[in-house]
């Protein structure tokens, strides 16, 4: 378990835990409908979903996959079950297109990516970070 993320702090009442961009990213995350699948205490991980609801997500057949938890997602590149997205902005853009049929603006992608960065928690007293 990796508690202590900035998003958790914000939810617990710390108004300064999130920046304006990150907060806007959270609102966009909800308004677009990402939260319908990435939900619950782990922001995902509690249901299966079709990949490529509206458009194919990369190559290969459309399969049903477990919706991944987004906790610590900023530290777990590359993304998707086949590692086809090298970074978060690429993954966010692809998900918007494939799952929501939305072409996200650069601003929206930037905001959501910033919000996802706030989901990184702490493990054994240290902030979770990508392996070097």
């Amino acid at each position, binding site marked *: 378990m990796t508690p202590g993320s900035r998003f958790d702090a914000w939810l617990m009442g710390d108004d300064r835990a999130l920046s304006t961009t990150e907060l806007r990213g959270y609102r966009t995350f909800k308004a677009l409908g990402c939260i319908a699948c990435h939900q619950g205490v782990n922001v995902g991980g*509690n249901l299966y979903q079709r990949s490529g609801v509206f458009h194919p997500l990369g190559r290969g057949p459309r399969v049903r996959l477990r919706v991944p938890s987004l906790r610590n997602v900023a530290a777990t590149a590359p993304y998707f079950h086949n590692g086809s997205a090298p970074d978060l902005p690429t993954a966010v853009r692809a998900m918007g297109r494939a799952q929501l049929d939305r072409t996200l603006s650069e601003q929206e992608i930037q905001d959501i990516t910033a919000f996802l960065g706030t989901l990184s928690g702490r493990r054994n007293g240290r902030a979770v970070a990508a392996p070097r």
Partner: protein
Amino acid sequence: MIRRTRLALLALSVAVLTVLLVWGSMPRTTAVDRALAALDAYETAQAALHRDLVSLRAGLLQNYDPLVVVSVDRLARASANLSIAEQTGLAGRARALQASAAEQVELAEALKSDAALLQNRPRLLQPAQRTGARRQRSAGERACGGHAAADPEHRPGESRGGGEAARRVRRRPQLRTSARGEALLAHAGLIERLLPQTDETLRRVLAADPIADRRALRAELIAQRARAKPSPWTCGSLLACGR
């Protein structure tokens, strides 16, 4: 001397018979009681799962954590515990219940996937949708412990009204002239396809309740328990035979 020997033999026989009687009846009674307890747990877990799935379909359950962590897991464990019924010679009934539980869990997964897709869709069809401009945490977020689970701007029953919204959008061919219109039509099509499918999945989950097997298993277990209970008449007869 002979009389004492006979009395000693008689006492020994009575003791052996009593031990055999108790030893023979106790394990069987325990298995029946445990099977009945497992059946109680199964019925409770199944009812909880049905409640959660109906709530989910009604748009009242947006956080699936309780459904996954509590209801589905509880039904799976209760189903596994029904294996104790094999010791009572009722393995067939127990297996029918276990198969039903497995089917219900599988259908619940499908229902969760479809309901998640439906959850936000109707709002995309509302031109005057609330865009989440509020900056402050809502009371809903605070109440749910702050998890991103529940979208506080979602109103229960929105997904139910999605069918009509989708049909209205689909009846406007002028939408095909713009990219935004095409996108709306795609979402409307998804809603139209998913709504009946979701209702059918829910109907199948509720219909998968093995009510006949449940009742039959309970009746047979109760009958076995009544038969297995050592009665004063049995003890008296055995003691009488021992003399």
